[in-house]
């Protein structure tokens, strides 16, 4: 996987369970991404432009606190986004949308999503998506590319 390959310092050590019963067991798996103080690997923003989906997936890390993306997974503080591109705004059954979004009449094309992400409250005044505006246009289009890759 391309994304993992840029983690130059990644190391995986798999340790067996400790035989000593008086001590707590050792880790079953310990993935050392980097050491404290060591610079982080190149950020997803610097990923090759052609891999917009991977870059978008990484940028989407800021969104996962509220949004789930697996098909069928329950919505969180925000609606599930599996298959969001192309669907009518406000159409996920298990999520209580704001009236503003429910009645927006929008269909989530890539362009509409991009505009919404740039400034949700301006695009749909009254939306409950109070955080998450993405000002960086490149990052925004990467996120939209990633969302477009999610099937329902």
């Amino acid at each position, binding site marked *: 996987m391309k994304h*993992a390959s840029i983690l130059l310092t990644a190391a995986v050590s798999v340790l067996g369970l400790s035989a000593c019963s008086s001590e*707590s067991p*050792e*880790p*079953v798996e310990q993935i050392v991404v980097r050491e404290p103080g060591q610079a*982080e690997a190149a950020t997803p923003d610097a990923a090759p432009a052609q891999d917009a989906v991977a870059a978008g997936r*990484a940028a989407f890390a800021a969104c996962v606190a509220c949004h789930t993306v697996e098909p069928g997974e329950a919505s969180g503080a925000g609606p599930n986004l599996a298959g969001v591109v192309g669907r009518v705004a406000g159409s996920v059954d298990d999520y209580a949308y704001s009236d503003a979004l429910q009645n927006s009449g929008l269909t989530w094309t890539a362009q509409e999503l991009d505009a919404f992400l740039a400034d949700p409250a301006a695009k749909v005044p009254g939306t409950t998506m109070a955080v998450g505006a993405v000002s960086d246009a490149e990052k925004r289009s990467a996120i939209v590319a990633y969302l477009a890759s999610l099937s329902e």
Partner: protein
Amino acid sequence: MSDIADARPPRSKAAKWTRRGFIGAGTLVGGALIVGVAIRSGNPVGKLKPIVAGGEGEALINSWVKIDANNLVTAIVPHCEMGQGANSTIAQMLADELDVDWENVRVMDAPADGNYVSHHAARMFVGPGTLPDRPNQVGFMEPTYDGLFTQLGKLAGAYITGGSSSVRSTGQNGMRIAGAAAREMLVAAAAKAWGVAASEISTENATLTHAGSGKSEPYSAFAAAAAEQELPRAPKIKQVSEYRLMGTPAPRKDIPLKVDGTAIFGIDGGPEGDELRYAAIKAPPVVGSSVASMDASTARGMAGVLQILNMGDFVAVVADSYWQAQQALNTIKTTYSKTDIDDLDSEQMFANYSAALDEAGESGGNSKADVGDATAAFQSAATKIDAEYRVPFLAHATMEPMNCTAWVRDGKCDIWTSTQVPLMSRDGAAEGAGVSADDVTMHSVFLGGGFGRRLTPEYTNQAARLAKATGYPIKMIWSREEDTAQDFYRPADISRFQGGLDENGKLVSWNNVHCSDDEPAEAPLVEFYDIPNVSIRGAEVEPPLRLGAWRSVAHSQHGFFVESFVDELAHEAGQDPVEFRRSLLKNSPRHLAVLEGVAKMANWGSDLPEGYGRGIAIARSFNSIVAEVAEVDMTGGMPRVAKMYCCVDAGFAMNPDGLTAQMESGIVYGLTAALYDEITIKNGAVEQSNFHDYHMMRMDDAPEIAVHIINGAPDNIGGAGEPGLPPAAAALTNAIFAASGERIRELPVAKHFA
């Protein structure tokens, strides 16, 4: 320097709970006099034994007094400050016995620090028979209090802050004696130096005075000489009439630190420097399960992430900040091993409880009280009443979630964590870090709430394991979701009653069977009520859930059960609930005084607005007696507690403000659970996760609370932290019945008003 600044523990240099320090003792440092008292209980530690620290010296509560060269007095107490203010009250008791004004007293919430450790003294301490002829400039006493309170003994042995025991055990039997002993030794030293009789020397505000000669010196002038004096075997402690500070609302020493933000709580603790990193963790949702697989492909690439660990019993992400760790953790996909309870749900658990009660029937199960013949008396009673009550599992929901900072290096382990059991936590850390308990240093910190949740060492063990695996200091913080899902819950329970009234409406038979394994054992008992035939039994059920002590422990459910049923009996007998209880309490004068006290406060019997109702309940727990009246407003969609009246007899209120605050706090905590909360199980896992589905009482729902104190037994004082809670739920549901005729037999109340 101000008193507050002086009392402020320097970060990371705060007093420490090391094993040596705990056993260790005082010696003179810079002219300071140290006097320690150990309280030891002869009671068996019982079922807590396997989980308490095992060292001989640890079956003690140590109280320490330090008088330094500036004539300041420090009370060093082995209890944790979790909001209850007991340590300040304990210091108040010391100051009174020692004749020191409150502004010259400081509190250190740890028993000792490294400067005062002495192997010589430690040996004396653990082996009272091996005391050398002349103590090495140290004064010691070791009164042993056998069989005072079974519960207290257990808690003392565990070195626990809990059981509402701090003031009545450490304060009453430790700190007062330490203060009185130090005072007598100072007087003896001055008498010798001045060549006068000790009886002619008076003490006031840390000053020794001989009126005849006009000589007067501060305590500090004789601190060194005092340590050379013979130990008083039985120092004279004050009578109530002589109290100057005890019984007054002396301002708590911890409040200024909390108001100005300088108090260090567990979650604030940690080493100086920039090496600290953060961990977020998630344990399997079902008890007994372990992590079968972990997919961290997304988390690996996320900002700030340092390590991702599958620890077998939980997964963790270590990152540069807590937020980064938690965000990365949220993306990790895990599967868990199967367990026997993967299909379990709350309904099934209650069905199991019911089955156990069916099996116990009218006379089976574990007998807890057996007076007369309850079954026969019930058969021949003029009026027979049956009732069954249910309470759910409950979480603690402390404001500060579970967390622990650990650093394992060079064979040593440092721990900063909010815990009610520093010794157990130390052992948990030692196990996790792979070092000996002697090599663990527990840094003392304030607790952001305890309520019994912090009586377990597992989170300390987790942090130590992570610190060992990474090699650098780790601050592990549980999310609120983790805190809610991985609690040690107050047990759910079902309690069944049969009551018999004679033709005059007198209660002649009381037959009760319930499921919980009661701690304390007195919780379901009704010995203070005059009932000729009583049978109280327990049916054994082992729910496959992590269970723990929750504020007032089993009193939290039995207060509701017992007082609900008494209320039903009163109504069945056609009697006023206060009058009915009054007739049952004729042999319990302190209970009766509390009952009448609260009825008077609430103006019981007076008119209430339409849609309002009053309910009363009384309970004794942790040696204190509390009666409460709830005034409930039923005019809205959901019952609203408008007022709570509380009358408490804790023997003697060492600090009336502190006792009042604990009554208020116990009431709010109890009403919160009674009104809103339950932990339910589905597919083996806890369903609730955060405050949206596990509610806290908010200010606009909180009742106005009035507290009246009766000092009914100054030589037999009771606890404060828990006794306000047990009557609260029944007072509420009895009030709902009075207002609406609806009898709530299953908590929480909100279920019935959805």
